[in-house]
């Protein structure tokens, strides 16, 4: 069973990584979802001392470990919030840039970058120029 869970979690992670490398922003979000699922599976699998659910436990009874479950709960909830935020972000990017493709976003960014480069050049001049306040009289 340990091996089976490890394989499943690893496949989730690997596929998530693959999707993250994609061009499409929506697929990147899907990749993030898969990776967080992989995390939750791992947490749950870590409590594989499977007995029955930890409810009204009699002393000495074998139950599943409740702490990883609590952690998994938190992870799921936070995951939902993050995904909602990510989707909103993608939505915004599409509204502003009219594309969900990374390369096109990168092109827009490159333009922006050129502007930044000019500003940086100005900064550099500021550091390098050397008005020492006075020349020897």
């Amino acid at each position, binding site marked *: 069973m340990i091996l089976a869970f490890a394989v499943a979690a690893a496949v989730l992670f690997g596929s998530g990584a693959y999707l993250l490398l994609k061009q499409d922003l929506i697929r990147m979000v899907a990749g993030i979802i898969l990776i967080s699922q992989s995390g939750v599976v791992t947490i749950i699998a870590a409590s594989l001392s499977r007995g029955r*659910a930890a*409810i*009204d436990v009699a002393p000495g009874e074998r139950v599943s470990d409740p702490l990883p479950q609590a952690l998994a*709960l938190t992870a799921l*909830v936070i995951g939902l*919030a993050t995904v*909602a935020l990510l989707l*909103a972000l993608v*939505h915004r990017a599409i509204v502003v840039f009219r594309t969900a493709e990374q390369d096109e976003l990168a092109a827009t960014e490159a333009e922006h970058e050129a502007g930044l480069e000019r500003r940086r050049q100005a900064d550099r001049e500021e550091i390098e120029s050397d008005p020492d306040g006075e020349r020897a009289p």
Partner: protein
Amino acid sequence: MVRVIARLLPGPSLMFAAGLIAKGYAEVGDGFAAGVIVALAVALAYVALGAAGAEAALPALRHAPKAAVGGLLLALASGFFPLLLGDPPVTHRPGPGEHVTTIGTLELFTPLLFDLGVFLLVIGVLTVLLHHLARSREEAAR
């Protein structure tokens, strides 16, 4: 048919959620799950009736932001109130070994407030989320 159910479902879902909260500490389920279940009923309404229709049929929805903020405040208050009494945060009352008044399976103690806060917050947050997704669509379409 779906529309009728969508209109009626929030009622029973609230009942179910109340049950989840009431059983909270003794059985499976807590404020979070209860909140999401109510939010799912709301979601059905949005899907079936559209944003404008859902909000017309269920006028209570526009209080969602208040529910979210109020829920958070309630949960934070019940969490940090013990600080005023000199206890660590999230110290619940009655303390260990003390008597808890119960009505059926409903236990009257501070975690209940905490759970209620979470419940309200989740409903509010998810409803606002649905609202935004649905509304921005309609605004874009216009």
